């Protein structure tokens, strides 16, 4: 039968020809088809076309891996030749030209998009911290910041305390006292940080028309209201049309035109009541709208029951200090010790579907993440991390030596026994901690103070 030519009805279809060329047919089917092709010119042409399609498709798919050099900024060129095994642990670097190795972008795990996002977040954090500092700084320093953040001499710092005010500039006593009163009001509504500067004057009781909002978003709203109060209180010396600027937390603050700072310029004493009321209503509406989706800084304590549990090279428990932002967008996070000390790790907090969360590790030379499930009082999930340059070697070692917190005591016992035998035979790990995969829990805490 195999020697007889097929009739028209038995010509193989295109799928069968591709399966034959992909060596996916049984021996009998392949032999029969080969015999037919030998005697059928039309099918020979179809087979030749199929070979071309297979080869062409393979070349096109392979082109997806090819990123040509010279298309990145000049400063990144020096990193191009730093090695190809960026994250794969193997000689075949993915997404990089084998001839020139991996790129600095990929080695740092900092994509251009993430770098731009991180820069935007840093700017927003700087603005937010500038306004936050007005609630805890001494009156003169804070007054300067509150009046004109753009002209502030206070150095950028991540700590809300310890703002270094510059007392050499002339002060406006009336403005200072007005801002000081409102700072005191804001301090009365907040309990996060204690003021470290000189004592402020006794503040009048908070307005009964303003209720103290709760939670992280409430802090932002409180700041905005404080700024609003400051703007209204200091209307005699500030033009009644100072532009309002909103930071990422939804707080609204006024930005003083530089020409009016400390000049003692006196605006018209009687600002129209309707205008002020309209501004207040607009500000409240804006704050309500933005604060609904805005979240302030928050902290999570992440713990693991495993012995010698670490994320990259940092031992658990860890505190994830998540930057302010919007609830449904990724936010940068600092990784702290429970004592509030900053570690060398950075992370990105990214909400996922179903209220789960992905926390990506950012540390040169390491790859890792923490996947947390939905919130139910606490979150539970899995943390994984590895040294980037030695994945293959360290995986074998790590999973032979790592203790896992599993419910199955028998399996746990066997695993504990296995490492004792496996460890001596495993290849010595490369520099840095091995691949680790741990069960973790996470719960919200107040952010620790260093």
């Amino acid at each position: 039968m195999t020697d007889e030519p097929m009739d028209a009805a038995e010509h193989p279809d295109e799928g069968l020809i591709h399966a034959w060329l992909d060596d996916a047919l049984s021996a009998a089917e392949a032999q029969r088809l080969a015999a037919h092709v030998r005697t059928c010119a039309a099918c020979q042409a179809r087979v030749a076309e199929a070979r071309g399609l297979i080869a062409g498709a393979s070349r096109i798919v392979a082109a997806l891996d090819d990123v040509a050099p010279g298309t990145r900024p000049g400063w990144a060129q020096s990193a191009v030749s730093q090695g190809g095994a960026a994250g794969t642990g193997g000689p075949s670097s993915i997404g990089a030209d084998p001839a020139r190795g991996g790129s600095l972008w990929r080695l740092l795990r900092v994509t251009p998009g993430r770098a731009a996002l991180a820069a935007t977040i840093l700017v927003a954090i700087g603005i937010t911290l500038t306004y936050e500092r007005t609630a805890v700084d001494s009156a003169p320093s804070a007054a300067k910041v509150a009046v004109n953040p753009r002209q502030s001499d206070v150095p950028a710092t991540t700590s809300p305390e310890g703002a270094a005010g510059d007392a050499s500039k002339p002060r406006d006593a009336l403005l200072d006292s007005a801002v000081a009163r409102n700072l005191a009001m804001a301090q009365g509504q907040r309990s996060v940080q204690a003021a470290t500067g000189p004592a402020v004057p006794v503040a009048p009781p908070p307005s009964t028309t303003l209720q103290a909002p709760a939670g992280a978003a409430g802090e932002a709203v409180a700041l905005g209201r404080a700024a609003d109060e400051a703007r209204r209180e200091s209307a005699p010396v500030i033009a009644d049309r100072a532009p309002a600027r909103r930071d990422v937390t939804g707080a609204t603050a006024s930005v003083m035109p530089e020409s009016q700072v400390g000049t003692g310029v006196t605006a018209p004493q009687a600002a129209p009541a309707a205008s002020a009321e309209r501004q207040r209503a607009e500000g409240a509406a804006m704050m309500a709208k933005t604060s609904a989706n805005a979240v302030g800084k928050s902290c999570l304590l992440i713990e693991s029951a495993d012995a010698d549990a670490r994320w990259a090279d940092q031992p658990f428990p860890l505190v994830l200090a998540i930057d302010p932002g919007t609830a449904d967008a990724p936010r940068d996070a600092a990784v702290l010790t429970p004592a509030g000390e900053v570690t060398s790790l950075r992370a990105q907090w990214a909400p996922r579907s179903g209220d789960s969360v992905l926390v990506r590790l950012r540390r040169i030379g390491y790859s890792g993440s923490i996947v947390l499930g939905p919130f139910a009082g606490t979150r539970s999930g899995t943390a994984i991390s590895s040294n980037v340059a030695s994945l293959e070697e360290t995986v074998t070692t790590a999973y032979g030596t790592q203790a896992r917190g599993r419910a199955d005591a028998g399996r746990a016992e066997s695993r504990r026994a296995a490492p004792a035998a496996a460890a001596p035979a495993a290849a010595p790990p490369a520099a840095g901690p091995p691949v680790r995969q741990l069960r973790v829990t996470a719960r919200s805490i107040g952010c620790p103070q260093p």
Partner: protein
Amino acid sequence: MVTPERLAVLFKTYHTPLVRFLTRRLGDRDEAEEIAQETFVRALKQETIASERSWLFAVASNLVRDDARRAARERKRHDLIRVREEAESAVEPEPTTMEREEDRVLARQAIEMLGERDREALLMREEGLGYEEIAEALDLSLASVGTTLSRARRRLMEAYESLQQEHSAKRA
């Protein structure tokens, strides 16, 4: 449950091809590694995995599908920034590297023009998965894998050639 030792073997064997498959699928290496990592995390939760390679690729494909919208936004942003980067690049690319970059862009556009099933089948085949594995990963019948691949290859070639002609016409 999959033991840590078994996972280590799976990781060592399939991490590289899985990341490459995902990189080709997504056009984003970082995203590919994250999804690959999540795939292996999920493997830990399995009691047993009969056909490991097809299971891993199937889970990875499902994760890509779940994150398709977010991945599309990331790719768009990267493309925009890359275009800006190239405009500001201090290095003048050589003609051959420009051609390769154009090839890659055209390849990316062509592969995105395929249907999702065709695209996944083709990329899995390019990673060396057999017809049985592809059928299991994509829930296809074995007999239909060849048809799927032939269609995917033909459409990919046609799309690529069409894009190439458009590109050449614009440059002319």
